């Protein structure tokens, strides 16, 4: 089945789409670009899903980039399907409302189907409830449109982000309340009492449906914004960093969740790679004894030379992490990563501080859930000395006093923090002492390099005594650093 060649407006649109993907950080090569062009010739253009998968299969080669792709796709190809023509919030034809409002009181029942404008807020809420109860996708989509039309208060040209409209719409829909109502209804419908398991299953089901509604609302808002502002502008405002580029210090809650999900596969990947590197190290010098022994089977001819494999010493790691509010997330991820590959080190000890300092190594011993241990560190470690504001100087003093003797020539010390010392004494001499004794001292700073030494940041005062100060703002940089550490 040969579809007629793609017309030039489509090509132009696709070119814009691809350059936006590149701008969003996805590596799209020229070959992939051509593949995409070819791929869409083989699928019916009116089938939006097939179109999307064709583009995805040719352009997105990393699953972590899927979300970014989806967002750009929604923006670029949002208004281009017959079913999405409902800009004015008309009620889809042939959808008879009276079917759905059976559950309402007599006087509230609408007089026949037709435009949704005339509906009252209660009716909309009731319909929402019914739609969620039945899991009726078409109705849910229609309600999402209605709700945006009614509650978002979108004005053309108004320079507010989509989140504002989303918030307004969702607040009026009161989804939490609806969820509770759904659960009540489920409890009533059940023959007996719901067991915890059943309760849980029901709730998961309804949450999934509510989530879908939320997505419909988001999509609707996006469609309207695109119509108002144009594709390019919209794509630009929606552009979000890829998970590996998200800044630790400014991650939103949602991004944090994405990061936490991303760190598991990352650590596993890193562990496999490092183990491999160790096994497949370069060949060393000739192992004479071993060669002679093997030569016996060849009648004394050393036919099979044997080499000594280098066994690089495993470093001993001490992690000293600032866990005060601003950099806590960064410390958490770094600890997570270091412990996930702890078999690459002969020993890992970790310390956390704010203005006091506490050893937390024991939290990680014998647990197989690192996330849990990191959580315990946050909850239980005794890190506050006076007021709970970072005091690097005092923390280092405590470290030196209590654990300084444990720092030896095999030890690599990693210090995590932004070096914002709240104008306390720096006590940089301690770092100098540590540097003398330790194998290496590294400082990882989650702040962008441009902010170093501004305000109360004294990173270079400490930095002169370190073997390296690194900017580690995102997972990509963190992964790179940890890999080089081993």
């Amino acid at each position, binding site marked *: *089945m040969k579809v007629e060649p793609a017309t030039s407006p489509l090509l132009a649109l696709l070119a814009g789409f691809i350059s936006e993907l590149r701008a969003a950080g996805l*590596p799209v*090569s020229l*070959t*992939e670009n051509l*593949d995409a062009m*070819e*791929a869409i010739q*083989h*699928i*019916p253009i009116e*089938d939006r*899903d*097939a179109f999307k*998968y*064709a583009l*995805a*299969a*040719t352009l*997105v*080669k*990393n*699953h972590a980039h*899927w979300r970014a792709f989806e967002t750009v796709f929604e923006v670029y190809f949002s208004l281009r399907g017959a079913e999405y023509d409902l800009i004015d919030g008309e009620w889809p034809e042939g959808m008879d409302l009276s079917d759905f409002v059976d559950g309402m009181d007599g006087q509230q029942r609408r007089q026949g189907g037709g435009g949704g404008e005339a509906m009252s807020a209660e009716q909309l809420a009731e319909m929402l409830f019914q739609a969620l109860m039945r899991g009726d996708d078409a109705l849910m989509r229609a309600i999402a449109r209605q709700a945006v039309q009614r509650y978002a208060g979108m004005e053309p040209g108004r320079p507010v982000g989509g989140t504002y409209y989303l918030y307004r719409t969702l607040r009026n829909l009161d*989804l*939490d309340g609806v*969820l509770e109502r759904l659960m009540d209804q489920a409890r009533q419908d059940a023959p007996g009492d719901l*067991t*915890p*398991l059943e*309760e*849980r*299953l029901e*709730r*998961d*089901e309804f*949450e*999934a449906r*509510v*989530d879908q509604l939320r997505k419909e609302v988001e999509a609707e808002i996006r469609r309207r914004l695109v119509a108002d502002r144009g594709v390019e502008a919209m794509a630009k405002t929606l552009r979000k960093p890829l998970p590996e580029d998200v800044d630790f210090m400014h991650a939103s809650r*949602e991004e944090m*969740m994405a990061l936490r999900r991303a760190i598991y*596969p990352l650590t*596993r*990947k890193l562990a*496999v*790679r490092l183990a*491999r590197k160790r096994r*497949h190290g370069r060949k060393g010098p000739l192992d004479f004894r071993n060669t002679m022994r093997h030569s016996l089977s060849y009648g004394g001819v050393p036919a099979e030379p044997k080499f000594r494999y280098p066994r690089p010493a495993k470093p001993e790691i001490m992690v000293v992490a600032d866990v005060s509010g601003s950099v806590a997330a960064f410390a958490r991820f770094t600890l997570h990563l270091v412990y996930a590959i702890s078999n690459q080190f002969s020993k890992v000890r970790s310390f956390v501080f704010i203005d006091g300092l506490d050893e937390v190594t024991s939290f990680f011993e014998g647990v*197989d*859930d690192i*996330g849990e241990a990191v959580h315990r560190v946050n909850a239980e470690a005794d890190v506050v000395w006076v007021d709970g504001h970072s005091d690097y100087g005092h923390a280092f003093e405590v470290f030196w006093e209590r654990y300084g003797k444990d720092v030896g020539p095999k030890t690599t010390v990693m210090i995590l923090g932004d070096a914002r010392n709240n104008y306390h004494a720096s006590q940089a001499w301690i770092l100098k002492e540590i540097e003398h004794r330790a194998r290496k001292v590294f400082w990882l700073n989650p702040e962008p390099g441009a902010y170093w030494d501004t305000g109360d940041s004294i990173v270079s005062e400490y930095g002169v005594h370190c073997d390296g100060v690194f900017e580690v703002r995102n997972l990509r940089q963190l992964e790179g650093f940890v890999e080089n550490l081993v």
Partner: protein
Amino acid sequence: MSFSFADVDSVRKGLGDVQYLADEGIAGVVYLAERLQKPVLVEGPAGTGKTQLAKSVAEATGARLIRLQCYEGIDESKALYEWNYKKQLLRIQAERQGEDPEGEGMWQQIEDDLFSEEFLLTRPLLEAIRAAEPVVLLIDEVDRVEIETEALLLEILSDYQVSIPELGTVAASQIPLVFLTSNNTRELSEALKRRCLFLHIDYPDLDREKEIVLAKVPGVGESLADQVARIVRSVRQIELKKAPSVSETLDWARTLVLLGVEHVDADTAAETVNILLKYRSDIEKALKEFASSDEEFAAPVASS
């Protein structure tokens, strides 16, 4: 060139006939792979049917499945071809016994004979190229080979040919459908990715999983399948070390059928959960989650 599939829907149907329930994305990519004559790189969590996809496509199209299982340290002689040197030695010996070689011309003759197809041992990749009948080539767990070895695959993936120095280039007589699977333990090289269509197979959604259970587990009832799918979905939402895969779901459903369970309650679930989850800590976590009282669930919906 004739195609086995007329459109995306017929891919779905074809795969459905051999008990592989493909969703829109999977069917679409398989269809495109055939049309564009490009390999498919299939990625996703373990046990979601990546390998099965290749097998099922082979079954649906009636093609022969040739499988190359990748492992660390795989090399040319295991993946592409090898000279059968024992046979070559025999040949030389036989030649000697017959008559004394009379100078250069004779030796040339033998050499040409030695490096002919007669003495070539084909390995999966070359075999897939040389096959006359339609072939599905499955390169399993490609992320296990070292990044240097990946280069072995590039020629075959982009041009469907293999260059053998002594013989010249062997081009494919028919274009095989190629599937590469990866568990994503490392980043594959750009060069490899560029040559492939990318397909991520995730855990199936509720309806699809239920259909899979219904199709694959004999004797399972509609309501049991529904319950199994629901419980598995809920279990996957907990943060676990290893979320249950589709194959584990199927194992669990089979066990329930064998035990004669028609309705899963909390006790049955607790007794059989070790089939679904493999880590001690995961099992404990799941049991804790599902046994706790209503209040804990009354937390507001995560505003994600």
